[in-house]
Structure formats: C-alpha cells, structure tokens
C-alpha cells in the first residue's frame, strides 16, 4: 500500500509542479465557462436579440409570441415590419421573425406560416428557427382541436380556440409531482457552461495525465520500476489513483470557483461526488485506452483531442442537446458526455438526488469498464 501511495503522491506532485497544469485545470475552464455562459445565459451580458413581427394579430399568433418570449436564450422584441427592418439595418437585432397573416390556416395546410430573416453571418439561425417551430407546434394542437370543435359545434375555430386556451391552466393540474424526480427543466447559461466546460477540461486534463504512462514507458521508467520489488498492480493502481485524485481536485476547485464567481448551484454534494467519480473513472479509462493504442505522447494528444472535442460536441457540452436533430441525439447516447451532462442537469436544474442520476451513473460506469478493459488488456509495460 505504501508503494501505491508513493507512486500516486509522486505523480500528483509532478502534475502540480507544471504551471501548464494549473492553466489547463482551472484557467481555461473558467474562461470558457464565462465566455459561453455569457452567450447562452439568462444572466448574460451578451444575448441574441431578434425582432418579432406579428402580421397575423390573432389569439393564435399572440400565443406563439408568448411562448417565444418565455425563452431564456434569445431575447425577442415585438415590433412592426418597418421598425424590424430598421433595427436589422442598425445591427441592433440579429434577425427578424415574421408571423405571417393566415398563420393558422397555413399551418393546417402544411405551408410555412413564418419567415426568418437572419443578419449576415448569423451562426445561430437554426436555433431561432427551431424555437419558432417548437412554439408553433405547441400551439398548433389547439388549432387542430379548435377546428374539429368548430365543425361539431358549428362555430368558428377562432372562438373555440379562445375557449380552449383560456382553460389551458387546468391541464397542468392533471399530473401531480410526488417525488423529487427530474422535471426536465433545461439548464441554462453559466450553469450549463460550468457543467459542460468542467467535463471538457477534466477530460483534457486526464488525457494529459494518462499521457504520462506513455512518457514513462518511453523514458524507460517503467522498465526500471519493474526491476524494483513493485508489482504491475501496484504501479497501475498508483497511477490510476493519482489520475482520479487530480480529477477530483480539478472538479472540486471548478465547483468552488463557479459557485463563488458565477453563483452556480451544483445540487446534492453526495450525488455530485458519485457522478464526478463515475465520470472520472470513465475519462481515465478512455485516456488509458487511447494511451494503449498509440506509441507516442504526440499521437495520444492528437487522437485524444480529436475524440474529446468531437464527442463533447455530440454530447451537448457546448450547447443544449435539444438543439440538435433527432439522429444526432440518438448518436449522442453513445458518448459519455451526454450522460454526464444529463446527470449534472438533473442535479443542477432539478435538484436531483442519487436515485435520480442512477441511469447516468450506470452508463458512465459501463463506459469506464469498457475503456479500462481495452486499455489494460493492450497496455505494454516494458
């Protein structure tokens, strides 16, 4: 046990002696959290502003507008068509959403009922379109019901629609929330960025740390270690523990700093500890697996960075996974970050408990077992 601890503590000491480790562990994640949190956050200094033109002026269009206005990521400004053009010309808005006349009829006839005119180079146009579509789909069900009701009661659909939407509030009372189960609240802004970038930079840090396995092998340190009375198990466990502890320290400091600086509430500490541990096991496993498949540290960094960045994109680390198409969401189930983000969302946005993150925990541990099996079975020691 002493030898395991000696290897572990020595590796931790080595890690913290490098100034670059501190930048990678804390500086970069906090910077990215702040930048991205500002872009996507409700506390954001920088928000997307979109002009909203209501040509329809009916109860239906007002409901669509009401739903859009509730959005926390984009700020909609209700103006007339002329004002909208002027705002766009002055770059005060990033685009114009127009709800056209006859919107309900068009929707029923499967014709586009709204248009979106983005400013030049606007990268978040798909996000706006998706939100407008979602708002209209949510309201469309009432239009469909109103048209059927109007036919049977021999009334105009608009009057039936008015009656239905006035009673909308009753529907919400049909389901009673009995537990602390996730309510599916989206995690937004700084909280989202904190969770996402903590995951990404812990992954990058662990990649860098597991690279020491290749360095040690190349420098002949492992060969020398195995001429001493230590076993492979002791060496591997020593390294493994050092990776986990550095990961824990990094996550703990990020939690502490994001709570202090950005007022992020990370939820239940016990559940968070378990989730972070499962994530770290998975990430260390991934690092060891990559280290076992390559010959040099440069190869490991190149392949590892590619894997981390691409899977972070898929797993909803940079932006909410709800923004991507269904196919991508299905693919995302096969990357660990998706489950880590789901777990963190449950803890942060829904104040979830250990029971609520059971599924993410199991999946992350499953990934860890697979990665560690690949890594340890392919590892070259001498």
């Amino acid at each position, binding site marked *: 046990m*002493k*030898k395991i601890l*000696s*290897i572990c503590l*020595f590796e931790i*000491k*080595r890690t913290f*002696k*490098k100034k670059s480790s501190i930048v990678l562990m804390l500086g970069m994640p906090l910077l990215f959290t702040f930048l991205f949190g500002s872009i996507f956050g409700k506390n954001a200094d920088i928000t997307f502003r979109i002009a909203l033109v209501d040509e329809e002026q009916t109860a239906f269009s007002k409901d669509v507008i009401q739903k859009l206005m509730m959005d926390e990521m984009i700020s909609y400004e209700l103006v007339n068509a002329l004002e909208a053009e002027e705002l766009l010309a002055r770059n005060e808005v990033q685009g114009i959403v127009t709800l056209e006349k006859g919107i309900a009829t068009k929707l029923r006839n499967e014709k586009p009922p709204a248009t979106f005119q983005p400013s030049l180079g606007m990268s978040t146009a798909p996000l706006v379109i998706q939100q407008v579509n979602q708002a209209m789909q949510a309201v469309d069900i009432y239009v469909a019901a109103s048209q059927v009701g109007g036919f049977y009661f021999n009334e105009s659909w608009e009057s039936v629609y008015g009656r239905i939407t006035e009673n909308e509030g009753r529907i919400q009372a049909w389901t009673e929330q009995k537990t602390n189960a996730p309510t599916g609240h989206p995690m937004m802004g700084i909280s989202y960025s904190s969770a996402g970038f903590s995951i990404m930079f812990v992954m990058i840090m662990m990649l860098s740390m597991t690279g020491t396995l290749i360095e040690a092998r190349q*420098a*002949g*340190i492992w*060969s*020398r*270690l*195995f*001429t*001493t*009375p*230590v076993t492979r198990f002791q060496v591997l466990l020593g390294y493994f523990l050092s990776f986990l502890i550095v990961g824990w320290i990094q996550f703990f400091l990020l939690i502490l700093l994001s709570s202090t600086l950005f007022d992020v509430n990370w939820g239940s500490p016990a559940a968070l500890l378990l989730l972070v541990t499962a994530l770290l096991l998975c990430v260390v496993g991934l690092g060891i697996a990559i280290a076992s498949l390559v010959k040099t540290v440069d190869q490991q960094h190149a392949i590892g960075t590619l894997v981390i960045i691409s899977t972070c994109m898929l797993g909803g680390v940079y932006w909410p996974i709800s923004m991507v198409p269904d196919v991508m969401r299905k693919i995302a189930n096969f990357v660990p970050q998706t489950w880590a983000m789901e777990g963190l969302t449950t803890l942060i946005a829904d104040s979830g408990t250990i029971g609520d993150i059971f599924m993410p925990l199991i999946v992350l541990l499953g990934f860890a077992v697979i990665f560690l099996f690949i890594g340890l079975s392919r590892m070259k020691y*001498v």
Partner: protein
Amino acid sequence: MLTLTDVKKSFGAHEVIKGISFQVEKGESFGLLGPNGAGKSTLISMICGLIPNGAGEIRVNGKLVGKHLKETKQIIGVVPQDIALYPTMSAMDNLMFWGKMYGLSGKKAKARAKEVLNIVGLTERGKDRIETFSGGMKRRINIGAALMHEPQLLIMDEPTVGIDPQSRNHILETVKSLNEQGLTVIYTSHYMEEVEFLCKRIAILDEGKLIVSGTKKDLNNRLAGGIVLKLTVGTLHPSFIEQVKKLNGVEKVIVQTAEELDVHLQSKMEIVADVILLASQSGVVIHNMQLKEANLETLFLQLTGRSLRE
C-alpha cells in the same frame, strides 16, 4: 552471489540467448563485454526479473529469480542504459522516489538520498531539477537511484553511454570505490577499456553466446602473445598474406581492408623484420606499420573476426 546455468531466451523463433552459464562471487566486479546486439541487455533483464528466462536457471544469493522475484529484486540495484528519471523533478525527489520503491520510509529515503548525492558527487545540486543537469550528471543520478536501497549486487547496463570523459571517469572511479567497499558489480559495456579498468573477471558475449570468460590474466594468456602488427600497404597480394601466415611466431592474420592487415604475433619482435623482408620480396609497398599491445578488443577480434564496436 549470482549463478547462471544454461540460460536461454527466445523472442519468437529468434534465439537471442543461447545457453549461457557463469558465476559471480560476492564482492567481485564482473564485466560483460560484447558488441551491440550480443544479448547483454537481455541477459541483464532476465537477471533482474524484468523478463522471464526461457530455459535454464538464474539464482541470486541461491534464490531462483523466477520463484523469489521480490527477494531477488531487493538484493539487486539496476542502472539501466536509459536515464530513467523524472526530468521535471529534483534530484532529491527522484532519489527518494526510487528509494521508496525499494521499501524505504520517507525519513530513511531522505537520509539515504543525501548520502547517495554525496557518493555521486552532486550534493550541491540535490534541489535542482534533473532537466537542468548535464548528460554526465544525469547518468550519475541514474546510478545513485540504484544505490538508494544499498543493494548487494549492482548491475550496470552501459552506464556511460554518451557522456563527457570527465563524468565518465567520475563514474568509473565511483563504481570502483563501491566495489572496493564490498559491493558486487556486474558491468556491461562495449567499451573494453572501461571493463578492463573496473573488472577482475570478464565474460565476452557475441550473438547470444558466451565466447570466452575468465580473469583478465586468463584472457591475456589466450591472446596470441599480446602483440599485433598493424600494416597499411599499397595493395595486398594474396601470396604475401599466405607467406606471412607461414612465418614462425605468427598466430593469426586478419585482413581488415584491401590495404590493411593485422598480424597477431607471439611476442617475437624479430618477426617484424621477416614481414618487412617478405613485403619487399612480394612487391608490397608498406605505407605504415604499428606495433600494438593486444587487449580485449584484440581478443574479441581474434575469436570472432569482428570488432567490438561493429
């Protein structure tokens, strides 16, 4: 201290160690000499339990290496060919780490690291990072790491590769002094002068086989008289070579190049005059002539027809 009995090792179909046997006594300094690829490092790896031996027996202090790995590893200190140290850590940190790997407690490791720094002559650089050291200083700490647990047997695998003469001398003097204090040393190198300086007994390996072993005196006796006449000529005529071989007192003739010839003599200096006469009669122009005392390199050349540093 160390006994090898018919040790063999193969990697796939390639047999790299072909039945080697020798013994090293306690307190002895034993040299393993051989060119690159002779099997020295493989043999050392087997002795220190890094790789298993394919056949035969290796015993350290009577204990079979394969069966009592932990005990035998504790007896041995290994100085690898690579500088197996952590460059971003200090010399002290490195030494303490390796001490702990041999079971030393924190306090003992610290105290011993100070002693070892003194042994290798780097006391004042203890707190400096290894990456700031010269090649020679790194080699000295590399040796120091193997001394941390006060081993009974020190195995050194080419410990002076790529360093300046001053550091090399320091290392050789340190090892000699340690041996004089009772430490058993196995020293491998393809620098025969290092082995000659340090070791009382020497084994020469080539292509996985032990081609000769014994004390320096034994090996010198095997040398053909101890003198080599090195000739550089215009053009070598085959008839001239044949006539030189037939001269009384000529042990062996080795053609090095189209213009170079080594004539191994049985210490009869008068033969030199006969060789000059023969050259003159055969029309061979002698450009240069050198008489050299034979050494281990010469012996290796005699036995294999190849140079140690090929």
